[in-house]
């Protein structure tokens, strides 16, 4: 490939909220829903929808448990998600260098 094709940017990641989620999750082993909500500044419904999309793509895994009888969901990047994020950043850098 000689010319950079922006359409090769991963559509799943190429959204502000999902990109923020991926950027956060790359820095941690796992993070709870409430932590992501505070950092991403999204509503429960909006964040849940984007997390579901990342989960369906196999980029994010979720672990649901009860803490003090309250449900808590911990999210983590999968190996596939980590690779996709690295590729996404690599392509952005390639675009700037062009």
């Amino acid at each position, binding site marked *: 490939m000689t010319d950079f094709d922006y359409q090769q940017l991963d559509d799943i990641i190429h959204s502000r909220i999902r990109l923020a989620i991926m950027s956060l999750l790359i820095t941690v*082993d796992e993070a709870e829903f409430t932590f992501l909500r505070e*950092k991403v500044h999204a509503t429960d419904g909006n964040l849940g929808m984007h997390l579901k999309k990342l989960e369906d793509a196999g980029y994010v895994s979720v672990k649901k448990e009860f803490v003090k009888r309250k449900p808590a969901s911990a999210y983590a990047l999968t190996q596939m998600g980590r690779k996709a994020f690295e590729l996404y950043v690599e392509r*952005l850098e390639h675009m700037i260098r062009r």
Partner: protein
Amino acid sequence: MEPIDAQQELAFIRKVMADSRTAISDDGKGLIVWGTLVVAGMVTMYASFQFGYPISKTLLWAVLIGLGWVYTIFHEMQNRKTKRFSTFGGRIVGSLWLGCGVVMTIVGFLSPMTGALKPWAIIPVSSLVIGIGYLVTGVVYDDRWTRFSALGWWAGAIVMMLWPGYYLFLLFSAMMIIFQIVPGVRLYQQWRLHQTSEGR
């Protein structure tokens, strides 16, 4: 997508990652508690030697170190209940300090009993171990001051090994205040500010 957009996108990623790192930082309470306990022990030891106050050194340190461990275990249990994220770096730093604490506890209590080390040597050896802890912590959290403080701990250890004396207690106390309690207070203030900004 134009290159300018790509730059904005990368800048956004960096900002989110940097923001997440500030959330990861320690609350500094452990540094303050352990530092204060050790300074209390060191000053008491100095007064005991310098002014001839009779005290049970083993009992003194058993109480202080015991209090430190009780605090650490309690704090860790609380953290596990309320922690909303975990990091690989955090686990490394936690394990490192746990290891350093165990080593210093063993050296501090067993070497005077067994004669494995001269009693005065416990302080510079502890200083060397603490230096390792600060170096690795500084590298993991990418904090220059923490990394450089390792040099302070090692320089102090060299001075103490070359010129042993009662002043060791005061020098170690001063090092503990400069390289541990003050950074601990700084961390605690940052952590409080972060908590307030998040409305917790």
